[in-house]
Structures are given as C-alpha cells and as structure tokens.
C-alpha cells in the first residue's frame, strides 16, 4: 500500500479546561510497529481512543485505513483490533466463550481455538474470566484484538501492572507480530519497551509530538554524548585523549578515564590506534549509550517517569 495506513493531523481535544491534545501530527506506515512514548497524561490514550472511534476530536482529522474514525466507525472497526488500557469482561464469562463471542462480531475471523493456543490460553478455555491472572487477562485481550485479522492493531500500555515474567511474555508476542509485519500502534511510558519493540517512535508530551523517528535516529539527534569509561595499562594524558575523534570531554577518576563522545565508534577506533602508537593497552572498557530517556530529558527538561 502506498502512503501511510494511518494519518493524524492537528488533533485537538480538550476535556473541560484541560487541553489533552494540542495539535498532534504523525503518520504510520503499513507493517511497522509504531510507538507512542510519553509520560502519563501526555495524551497517548486520548489519541488512540480517537483513532479507534471511541472519542471525537474537537479539531483536526484522522484517517485509519482510509476511514474516518468518526464517520465510518462501523466499517473501520472491522479492520482494527485493540487491547485497551484496561480490558474488563464479565467475571463469569468463560475464556473460550469470550473469544468466540468477539469472533462472532466480525464478518471474517480466525479460529478462536487457534488463537487461544497461540497465546497459551488453551488449558484456560473453560476458566472464568474472573479467575485469570493479570498476565493471562492481558494475553486474552491481545488474542481478542487479533480475532478479526485486523489490518492495524492498537495496544494501549499492554504491560502496565504486570510482573516481569508476564511482561516478557507480552514482548514475545509483540516481537512475533513485528516479524509478521503487522501494523501496530503501541502506547507506553516505558523507555525500554519503545526502544526494544518499535520501528519508529513518536515522543509525546503535553498533547504534542515533540520528536519522531526510529529509536536510533532519535538518540543520534540528541546532543547528548555517550559515556566511555576506559582503564588503561599505563597512564595517559586527558588532554591527549580529548583530541581523539568525536570526543567532547575527557576526565580522569580513580585511574580511569571518562570520555564523552559524540561518535563513540569513531572514538573507540581512534583510541585503540592511539594506544597502539603509545605502546599502551586497554585494560577495560565501559560504554553507556544515550537512551531515549536522555532524549526525553533533553527535550523536556524532565524525566519520563518509569
């Protein structure tokens, strides 16, 4: 498909006095996992809800699979699947019944049994929804989102409140979807999720997209430098090290040199060459790469609450 599968332009939404969205713009291409990264209250959920047709924007336009979420609501809903921020189902509903129920809403759907198996819920087929653990409920929510083979998936903070084991299970599922080239819009306030799972990320804060790109692009764009800590066999001059390619600063602490570099690969190559020329050697090397958190802090001056 040429052109983006999802496009959002100048979305504005306010709740009473609060401006939840102040002009959100982004587009998503088919087959990519697109992340919306931002702190709570940034407007991620509101944006996703507008795209799903659950809320209407005050201004701006959105187009999902060529449909307007407000006008072509029913037609759009056949093409999308979503796991909401908190999925609730009647406690007394059985797992198998739940997925069969939702399968029945669509013109075409996948086999409920196959989905349950894929998400590891086969044995729980007859269990009541109320008996499931948090992780199981979330896996069911994801399974239900896939039941109609949607063209685009919306996952709103799917790992919130889950223990690390359950989280990893969700990551595996997302990575599998990524390999299958499914289009996913993934909302999160966890940095590592955005870095690990997403092809492209839009960093959102206070109702605006403040940065957008692949995780790598975003980190490169940051003026932040990589911290390289080296221990050398023989002492060396800070000034000399500061001359190495890409190095912005160099300091010594306790026998190790801490370099701050804009281009860590080049710096390391230069460092090795320099040490060779000096008859010196690397005893140890530690690199701390800039993270999206650094990007966020740089853009907003605040931490992204984790």
């Amino acid at each position, binding site marked *: 498909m040429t052109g983006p599968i999802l496009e959002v332009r100048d979305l504005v939404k306010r709740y009473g006095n609060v401006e939840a969205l102040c002009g959100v713009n982004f587009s998503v291409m088919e087959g990519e996992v697109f992340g919306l990264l931002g702190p709570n209250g940034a407007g991620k959920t509101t944006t996703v809800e507008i795209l*799903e*047709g*659950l809320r209407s924007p005050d201004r701006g336009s959105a187009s999902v699979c060529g449909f307007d979420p407000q006008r072509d609501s*029913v*037609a759009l*809903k*056949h093409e*999308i699947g*979503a796991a*909401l921020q*908190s*999925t*609730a*189902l*009647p406690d*007394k*509903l*059985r797992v198998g*019944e739940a997925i*069969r*129920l*939702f399968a*029945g*809403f*669509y013109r075409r759907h996948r086999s409920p049994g196959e989905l349950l198996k894929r998400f590891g819920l086969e044995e729980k087929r007859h269990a009541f929804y109320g008996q499931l653990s948090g992780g199981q409920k979330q896996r069911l929510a994801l399974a*239900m989102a896939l039941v109609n083979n949607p063209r685009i998936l919306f996952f709103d903070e799917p790992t919130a409140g889950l223990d690390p084991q359950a989280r990893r299970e969700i990551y595996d599922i997302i990575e599998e979807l990524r390999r299958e080239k499914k289009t996913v819009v993934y909302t999160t306030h966890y940095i590592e999720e955005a870095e690990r799972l997403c092809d492209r990320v839009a960093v959102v804060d206070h109702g605006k997209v403040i940065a957008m790109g692949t995780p790598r692009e975003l980190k490169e764009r940051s003026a932040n430098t990589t911290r390289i800590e080296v221990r050398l066999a023989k002492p060396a001059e800070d000034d000399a090290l500061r001359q190495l390619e890409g190095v912005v600063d160099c300091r010594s602490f306790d026998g190790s040199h801490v370099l701050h570099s804009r281009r860590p690969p080049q710096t390391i190559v230069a460092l090795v060459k320099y040490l060779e020329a000096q008859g010196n050697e690397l005893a140890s090397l530690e690199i701390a790469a800039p993270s999206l958190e650094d990007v966020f802090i740089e853009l907003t001056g605040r931490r992204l609450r984790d």
Partner: protein
Amino acid sequence: MQLALRNRLFIFFSLIMPLGIFFFYLSFLAKGLLGPVKFFLGPVIALTVMGSFWGLSTALVTFREQGILRRFRVAPVTEVDMLASSIVANYLLALPTVAVELLLARLVYHVHDFGNLFSVWILVTVGTTSFASLGLVVASVTNTMQETQVICQIIWFALLFLSGATLPFPSLPHVVQRFGVFLPATYLVLALQKAFLNHAAAWDLLVEITALLAWAVLTFFMAAKLFRWEPEEKVTRNAKVWAAATILPFVLLGVWENHYGGVRSQSQSAMDSLRSGGRSSASR
C-alpha cells in the same frame, strides 16, 4: 447481525441466570398469598414480566461502570445490537419462568382453565420487550448503581400499586385510578386478566396490545438514543427531549381513558366475575 445477537446470549446466560431464579421466587411468593388464583394469575404473570426492567438496568449499569461496554464498542457492535440482544436474552429467561408459574398454578392450585394461552403468550412477549426496554432506558439515564437501584425501586412500587397488580384496580381510590391509567403496567395486568378469565382472543385485546407495543417500540428507540458506552459520557439534551417524547403516547392514552373509562369498567367487571366465580368454586 444474527450471529452477533446469538453470540451475545452467552454472556447473559452465564450472568443473568441467577437473576432469573430470583424473579421466579419472587413471583412464587406472591402466589402463595393468593386465594382466588385465577383472578390473580394475571397480575402475577404481569409482575414477572414487569420485573424485567430491574434486572436489565442493573446489568447494563454494572457493565458500563466496569468498563466492559468499552471493549464492545471497539468491535463493530452498535447500540441497537446491544439492546436487542439483552432484550432477547431476557425474554428467553422470562418465558420459562412464566411457564413454570403456570405449571405450578395447575399442580398446586388445580387451575385447569388457563383461558386463551395464545393471547397470554403475545402479552408476555410484548410485555417483556416493553419493560426490558424501560430498564435499558433507566440504565442509560442513571450514573451509578445506587442511583439505578433507587430509581428502579420507585418505578417498581409505582407499577406495583398503581396498576392493579397487587391491589385490584377497582379497589384503588378513584384519584389513584386516574393516575394508574397512565401506566403501561395497568394495561398489561388488565389484558392478562381478560386473557385468563374471559378467554379473550388477541383481537379483543387490541387496545392493550397496541398500547404495549407502542410503548415497546418507543422505549427501545429511546434506549438506543440515550445509550451510553462510558460512565463519563453525559446524556445529551437531544436525548432528554426524546425521553420526554416517549411518555407522550401514554399520556394521551391516559387522558383518553380518563374520559371514556373503558379500563375501569372492564376491571370492575373482572372483579365482579371474581366474586361470583369465587362463590361457585368455593362450593366445589
């Protein structure tokens, strides 16, 4: 949509079954107090039918509060689908309940003549639809479970006492009767009585059936307009106008009845036949 409707029933069967049993016992209790059973069969069945609204409104409000409705909204499910399927599910529960009550009437009270069962069936069908829709309207208008319970209680007692379902209509003071005539429940009670006692065929009950049918259609329409998926959504002013509009036909009917008094005289004659019939069955 057929598929959607049928699938929805799963949910309600697993949840509302307990409620169905509750209503069964309720009507059972009411029965236990009765002597002239045939006369009161009408009101008792009517009570079962009318109870629909309470269970349905509770269920819908609970679902909305818990955020369950939200997930359904993401699927291509419309308000009409949701309403229609809950009404159907409710009907499927109510019907056996009524059947059991009639069975008990035969077994325990030795009632053999059930009048025109076809009419009864029609009235039960139309009645459950109307009152279920009423429940859905209530659920859409209220915000919390407490509000819902309070409003349901008020409506329940109004229906109970003003319609002749508990105290026979003719025995109510005239002033109250005037108000009672405005309620759909009154027509339901009277129609059921006529069906049981006088073997009234569907044609004879046309007025009542039409009234209930109109009520069913209008409340369903109103419920669809007022339907809220989320707890925070406000009821629009437009919706409130429609709500008032639904009341209109019954207001008109009530006014008409007050002038021509058809209902009152009919229920009076039913009462009279009870007195005479009671004497003859007592002598048996």
